[in-house]
């Protein structure tokens, strides 16, 4: 019943090979098999967005993916965005704008925004709020997160 399957994935540019049960969620694979606990487990049914990662460059709920499905895929998690000593650009914007309080939802927001900055219009607050609408934060009231994304979107505009 619980035969294990070998998969090889790239996570933040490093290759990992593991034997896993097919029923293992991608969230649990990242956290328990690879020790990458930056990806947080919130609702485990695709509502809260805390577990969002990038799968081949696009955001995905890692609680709605089986690890076995990602064999050969390129995954990015919050650990690839920066370190405590050297924050990534999105993380720095969150810090500058007080875009987090308890921080539980933050990894999901950061990875969602990483996708949105690459692929979506963020020209006004309506578009920014739509881009963030799949992630739930119970601390900030979202205003400070919107402020952070507004700054990131402006920088991106300058690069265009």
């Amino acid at each position, binding site marked *: *019943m*619980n*035969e294990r*399957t070998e998969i090889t994935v790239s996570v933040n540019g490093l290759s990992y090979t593991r034997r896993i*049960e*097919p*029923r*293992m*969620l991608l969230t*649990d694979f990242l956290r328990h098999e690879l020790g990458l606990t930056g990806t947080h487990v919130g609702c*485990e*049914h*695709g509502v809260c*967005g805390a577990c*969002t990662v990038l*799968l081949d460059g*696009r*955001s*995905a*709920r890692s*609680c*709605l*993916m*089986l690890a*076995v*499905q990602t064999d050969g895929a390129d995954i990015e998690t919050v650990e690839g965005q920066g370190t405590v000593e050297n924050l990534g650009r999105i993380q720095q914007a969150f810090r500058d704008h007080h875009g987090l309080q308890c921080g539980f939802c933050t990894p999901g927001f950061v990875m*969602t925004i990483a*996708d*949105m900055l690459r692929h*979506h219009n963020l020209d006004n607050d309506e578009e920014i*709020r*739509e*881009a963030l*609408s*799949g992630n739930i934060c119970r601390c900030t009231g979202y205003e400070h997160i919107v402020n952070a994304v507004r700054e990131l979107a402006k920088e991106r505009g300058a690069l265009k």
Partner: protein
Amino acid sequence: MKPAYFEYVRAESAEHAVQTLASAGGDGKVIAGGQSLMPMMNFRLVKPSVLVDINRIPGLDAVQIRGDKLVLGALVRHRMTATDALIAEHIPVLHHAMKHVAHLTVRNRGTFCGSVCHADPAAEMPMMSLLLNGVVRIVSPRGARALAAQEFFVGSLVTALEPDELVTEIEIDKLLPDTGWGFEEFARRHGDYALAAVAVTMRWREGLASNVRIGMMGVGEMPMRAPQIEAMLEGREINSTTIREAIDALRAELEPNSDLNASADYRRHLAGVLARRAITDAWARAEKGAAA
């Protein structure tokens, strides 16, 4: 929350997928985007013995034109439907409806055909497949068949699909360029399942409405067309009187459910409001389309 044990099969072809489903003896399940199936598996509401992953089957991810139809393969993600140039040009009402489908991250994975197969009465794609006279193309080890969307939906979350069958594509109507459309949805929060939605298409012919179609969702066990209301408006001028008549008839006919989100009365009232707006928009666009 973890899914129960299952055997995982990565299908290499549609044939491989349906053979695997057949040998699972009615207990297999197909996964494409997984945005509805995985939550149910995490809760163990669904415990398939075999999970058939169709994500790597080549050739199922295309949107293409076939005569006066547009065809969406089983792996066309919501993001593709939302951004596809052919859909934006030929079926603007579907292009617009995509703004209401879940959130951007879910649209990256979820599929048009998967949503139709899930058959949630408050999801947009089942309603749009009805509105656009969808034809569901199905394969199984017993051969191929096609079902009209009207016959495909059997109940809430229930379709006519047999356990060994796979939907490979859905054909929907391209709309004539002068077709007017309206789409109105109400949800408590953006991206949530709708409390109700109404989609309307029609053409303007010498001052009268023609080819009137009305699709609704969230107001019954299944998404539905409103053929009596369509017939009431067909061949008539759309004005405040005809709209009022149509809305009154619609409200008299609807039998929505009461649930924790809204009462039946509320939904009946809401459906009328949304229908009035959608019919008004469709008529205005049809008039403009005829003038162009």
